Every structure is written in structure tokens, then in C-alpha cells.
């Protein structure tokens, strides 16, 4: 009985403490909310955002051609929605990955022009469309490279294994900004005279080098998680080493590594913002350029809040898409 009353007391005191804590927190949140709302409505001047929306989206893309990046972004978004809904028709589902890969040449074609469209130089690419281009290109190039590196690190050939390991480990030891710096300022020194690579492509190249090392480690984790019996079963069926890797190991490793890979994608999307420091006018770069316009000097809180919400929205959207894919492609562990 004594124990019982003590228990009641304890529960009550915990609840009382909890209640007070909750109340205090709610009070603080409320105050913060009112303060922020007050600022948002009365002090903030959103002209720096509202007047420049097309710039944030397309950079200095020629006005009469803006439909091109817009079309590309819309096609990407609609493809995401289709993927989210998850069509039931098998042929449609099977062609989804292909459609995703196809958005890349489509994007490059729409942005750069040619074949009937007026050419637009990469200096005019900017804003969100450049951010997305950097992300998608780097990812699609880094994925196969990462797979090769992961396989290389698992290889039986000591030389291949050592080289892959050195590459992966040293790339993971240096900061991204150093790699991007290399891409922007040092790559030209390694090219023959007269050969130039556009700076957008150099940025993509640097991102690819960097991200592939991280992807390689994620995929290696996936490869190691595949039980040896899978390889035995495949070998028993007479598949050779290449066929085992192609049909059994890579598809399973990719599925296992999917959560880690989607995190890499989201991280990459955020990290493209570092190019603002190195002179590309992507989403953050546009914000910084606009802040130099005499009309908008000092409006950086508005710009930062606006940019943060755009990044947040896109990253969250990517995360939702990723969770959905994970669920659909998940391998039930119990049956391996």
C-alpha cells in the first residue's frame, strides 16, 4: 500500500513536471511565433523575392526562352509525381528508370539548345534550374563510377583493389570545397592548350569525383550485406562472374544501399550551394548577386528565409520520394 501511494506520488510529480515543462515550451513557441509573424508581416520587405522570381528559377536565361528550363523542371516534377503514385501497369513501371535517365539529355538539350532551338551558352544558366542540373548530372555520372569503385574495392586483383581504396579514402578525407576549387581553378592547368571545358561541366566533374567516393562506400555496404549463399546459388546455375555481378549483386546492393544513396542525393542537392562561393550563379548565387543590387542592399534576411524554404521544400520532396521508393523496392530480409 505504501509502495502504491509512493508510485502515485511519483507519477503525479512526473506529470506535474511534464505539464509545466510543456506549458513553458508552448509559451516560448507562442512568443517566438508572434514575434516572427510580426516581422514577416510588418518589417519584412519581400520585393527582393517577388520582383526576382524568374531569376531565382532560371538565372539570366534569355526571357523569350525561359519556357525551356521551365518545361524541364515541370517534366521532372511530373515524373516525380508519377513515380510517387506508382503506376500499376507493368510496362509503365519498368520504363520509369529509363524515363528518369532520359530527363538528363532532355534537360541538357533544353538548356543548351541546338537542333532547332536557339543555342544558349552556359553562362546564362542559373538559379534553380542550374542547381537541379548540377545535382542530376553529377548523380547520374557518379552512380556508375561509384559502382565500379565499390566493385574495384572488392576485387580479387590486388592492384585494382589498392587503387580503388586509395581513391575512395583520399576523396573522403578532403573537404568538398577543396575538390570544387580544384575543379574550377586547377583542371584547366591539366588540359592541353586550346582545350577548354566549360565551368558548369567542370563543376559537375568535381561533384562527380567527390560523390562517387561516397556512393562507392554505400554500395560496398550493400554488397557486403548480400549473403554469400546468393552468389553460390547463382554460381550453381552456371552464371559466370560478370553475370552474377550484373544480375544478382548490383541490383541487390543498390536496393540495400537505397536509403544511403537517397541521403547522398539530398546532400548533393544542398551542397551545390557551395558553387556560390566559387562563382556559379546557382540558387544561392542568385541570392548573393541580387544582394549587390543597390535596390536590395541589406535585404538578406528575406533572401535567406526564402532560399531556405525553397531548399527545404525540394529536399523534403526528395526525401518523401525516396522513402516511397525504399518501401516499394525493399527486400524482405527474412527471405534472403
Amino acid at each position, binding site marked *: 500500500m505504501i509502495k502504491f501511494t509512493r508510485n502515485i506520488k511519483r507519477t503525479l510529480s512526473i506529470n506535474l513536471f511534464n505539464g509545466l515543462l510543456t506549458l513553458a515550451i508552448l509559451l516560448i513557441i507562442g512568443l517566438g511565433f508572434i514575434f516572427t509573424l510580426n516581422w514577416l508581416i510588418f518589417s519584412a520587405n519581400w520585393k527582393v523575392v517577388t520582383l526576382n522570381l524568374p531569376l531565382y528559377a532560371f538565372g539570366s536565361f534569355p526571357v523569350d526562352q525561359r519556357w525551356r528550363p521551365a518545361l524541364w523542371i515541370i517534366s521532372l516534377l511530373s515524373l516525380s509525381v508519377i513515380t510517387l503514385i506508382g503506376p500499376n501497369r507493368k510496362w509503365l513501371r519498368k520504363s520509369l528508370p529509363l524515363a528518369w535517365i532520359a530527363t538528363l539529355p532532355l534537360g541538357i538539350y533544353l538548356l543548351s539548345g541546338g537542333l532547332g532551338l536557339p543555342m544558349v551558352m552556359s553562362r546564362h544558366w542559373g538559379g534553380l534550374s542550374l542547381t537541379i542540373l548540377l545535382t542530376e548530372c553529377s548523380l547520374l555520372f557518379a552512380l556508375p563510377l561509384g559502382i565500379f569503385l565499390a566493385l574495384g574495392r572488392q576485387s580479387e586483383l590486388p592492384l585494382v583493389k589498392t587503387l580503388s581504396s586509395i581513391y575512395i579514402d583520399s576523396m573522403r578525407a578532403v573537404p568538398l570545397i577543396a575538390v570544387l576549387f580544384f575543379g574550377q581553378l586547377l583542371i584547366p592547368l591539366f588540359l592541353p592548350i586550346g582545350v577548354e571545358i566549360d565551368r558548369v561541366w567542370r563543376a559537375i566533374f568535381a561533384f562527380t569525383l567527390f560523390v562517387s567516393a561516397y556512393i562507392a562506400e554505400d554500395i560496398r555496404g550493400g554488397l557486403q550485406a548480400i549473403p554469400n549463399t546468393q552468389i553460390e546459388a547463382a554460381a*550453381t*546455375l552456371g*552464371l559466370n562472374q560478370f*553475370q552474377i555481378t550484373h544480375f544478382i549483386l548490383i*541490383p*541487390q546492393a543498390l536496393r540495400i544501399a537505397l536509403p544511403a544513396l537517397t541521403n547522398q542525393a539530398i546532400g548533393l542537392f544542398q551542397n551545390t550551394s557551395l558553387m556560390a562561393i566559387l562563382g556559379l550563379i546557382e540558387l544561392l548565387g542568385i541570392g548573393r548577386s541580387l544582394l549587390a543590387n543597390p535596390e536590395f542592399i541589406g535585404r538578406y534576411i528575406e533572401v535567406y528565409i526564402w532560399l531556405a524554404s525553397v531548399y527545404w521544400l525540394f529536399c523534403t520532396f526528395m526525401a518523401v520520394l525516396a522513402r516511397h521508393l525504399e518501401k516499394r523496392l525493399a527486400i*524482405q530480409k*527474412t*527471405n*534472403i
Partner: protein
Amino acid sequence: MEHIVSAKNLSKSYTKGLYALDNISLQVDEGKVLVVMGPSGSGKSTLIRTFNGLEAFDAGELNILGIRIDASHDERRIRQIRKRVGMVFQQFNLFPHLSILENIVLAPVQVQKRLQTEAEEHAMYLLAQMGIATHANKYPSQLSGGEQQRVAIARALALKPELLLFDEPTSALDPERVNEVLDVMRNLAKQGMTMIVVTHEVGFAKEVGDQVLFLDSGKVIETSTPNVFFSNARHERSRKFLNQIENK
């Protein structure tokens, strides 16, 4: 007539002095079923896995379907053997990322270069024989253990093997599911398939086996017909083992 499988003085040791296989010799003829029994750790699995090259051995030689392999473990010959020998595992080992149909069709199309449509037709025929044709488009995780093991058998059969190896095919199954797999195996034996089966199923061994090989500590203790082995085993160790599994 040549034997389908003939092993001569096979030996393998993991650590020095401790033999997984100790001087084993045996023969299996076409259309016969050899049942391998023995306590756990006796080397049954190791033995059956040497027959398609999943395990290398240290000494002796093997002749499978006329292809000779020895301790050098020549990979080209082993691939030759694997194309003609099917194997069914205790844990099914289906490919979880492929549908049932894709699991079965993979090897015929990729290894034997058969046409996709033809391979699928054959796969559907096999699945129908196993009584699981309705599951063709499901994934392994959606099937029960017994169903998965029947898929694994169909996958092995899809390559039209001349020899089937079974490594404890029913040990991982719920007891009430064991028979649906054994029935399939009985049918195969009736159709004249040459099989080597590692199992603890006494009933199956009695009914289907042409010979029982009893293994302990890597040694062949005795090889007899089921009739002899189960009613009148020649060796003390065999009798002890039989007692144990009957008391289970």
C-alpha cells in the same frame, strides 16, 4: 555403362588433422537416387557441395557426367559441370529482387541462351507441375517456405539438368510443409531423375532411395540399400544415429 557420379578417395581438411572428408569413394548410376545421411557436422553438406564445385577438395578425384575434376579445381570444367547439374539448398536461396518467373528464367536465358518466350513457357510448365503456377508474378518474400522450395526446384529443373543435388531441402520448413516438397521429389524420382539427397527424412529415404550412404566424421561408415540400412544396419554408429532420429 559409365557412372553419372564417381568419386575416388576424396579428402578435404579445414584444419590440419581434422578431416571434413576422409578418403571417400562412391558411385551413382543413371536414374538412381542416393540418400546421404549422418549426424550434423559429419561432412554431408561438404560432400554434396564438392559435386558441383562449391567446395574444393585436397586430394582424390571426381568424375561427374564424364567431366573429370581434381584438387586443382579447374574453373572452366566446373562451369561445364554446373551447366548440367542442378542444386537445391536448405535455405532455398531464391533471388529476392526477382519475381518467381524471373528467378526461373534467368539461367536458361543468360547461360543457355534460350529464347525468353520459350524459357518462360517452360518455366510456366514447371511451375504448373509444382502446383504453384498462380504465383509466377509474385516475389519470393510473398511465398511460404514450402512454396519457395518448390520454386527453387523448378529453377534447378529449368536448366534440364542430368543430375540434381539436394542439400537438406526440407530442414528449414515447417513440419506441415515438408510433404509438399517431398511429393515433388518423389515425382522426380519416378520420372527417372538421377538425384543425390542429403536428408533426415527416413520415410523418404526408405521409399525413394536406391542406396543410403551413412557418413560420420568425414568417413563413409556404410553404404547399403534402404531396406538393409533401416532395419538391419551393419554398424554400431549407424544404429545409434537411427535411434536418435527416431526418438526425436
